[in-house]
């Protein structure tokens, strides 16, 4: 069986990019949590989570964003989220994530957003 979830790490203009692929549910969320934790501990606090190949997210996946965002912002960093498919975006939107997180159309927009507002003003 194909791996249901994978994370591809890269850097883009000094930003740490985590590109998610597959589905992020209660089974796969610990892998994402480990990846964000790893970036944070390595001092890579300006993160972009690229979701163009993310097919599904549940509250367990959203919980990963919630559990790290405060610490990361306190350290002067942020998590910007980009390229959400409409089915995935609706979940972020219904729960109010769009007010608390910078959600942008694509990776270049995330890079640009970091130039304008390194930490989202809430």
């Amino acid at each position: 069986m194909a791996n249901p979830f994978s994370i591809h790490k890269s850097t883009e203009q000094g930003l740490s990019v985590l590109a998610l692929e597959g589905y992020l549910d209660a089974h796969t969320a610990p892998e994402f949590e480990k990846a964000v934790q790893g970036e944070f501990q390595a001092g890579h606090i300006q993160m972009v989570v690229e979701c163009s190949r993310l097919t599904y997210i549940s509250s367990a996946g959203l919980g990963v964003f919630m559990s790290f965002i405060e610490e990361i912002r306190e350290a002067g960093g942020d998590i910007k989220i980009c390229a959400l498919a409409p089915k995935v975006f609706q979940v972020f939107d219904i729960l109010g994530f769009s007010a608390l997180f910078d959600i942008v159309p694509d990776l270049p927009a995330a890079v640009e957003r970091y130039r304008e507002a390194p930490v989202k003003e809430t």
Partner: protein
Amino acid sequence: MASFEQRFALHVPSSTANLSMIRDFVGKIGMQAGLDDMEVARLEMAVDEACSNVMEHAYQSDATKEVSIRAVVDESVLRIVVIDTGKGFDPAAVEQKKLEDLISAKRTGGLGMRLIKSFMDEVHYAMVPGEKNELTMVKRLRKGGQSPLSTE
């Protein structure tokens, strides 16, 4: 005309590894019932959240337990019932805290139930002490099963 009812059931070990199988199961039923892509996605998510709650809270991650998902479709509704024999809960007591407060408290509790209530037309919970717990989620279908009623 007599109503035509179709029944489906899936029983899986209480492991999060089975969540994708559960989503596929209810997704296919939703498609067959005439839901559009977005509604199918919402149905899959609601049932995923219900089953994740059972696995984590009712069974406290004990994979030897079983989660049952029953679906009944007729011309007007799709009804999904998630059944467990673990620890029950009071859905009325599930906190509806603001997202900011949950983040500050480093808690994600209640988000799943919030999604279930947003995505389904009716949600009922019944506990039979010492026997089983049942979470029933209802999606109304437009007559003829072509597409759902708007839930906006």
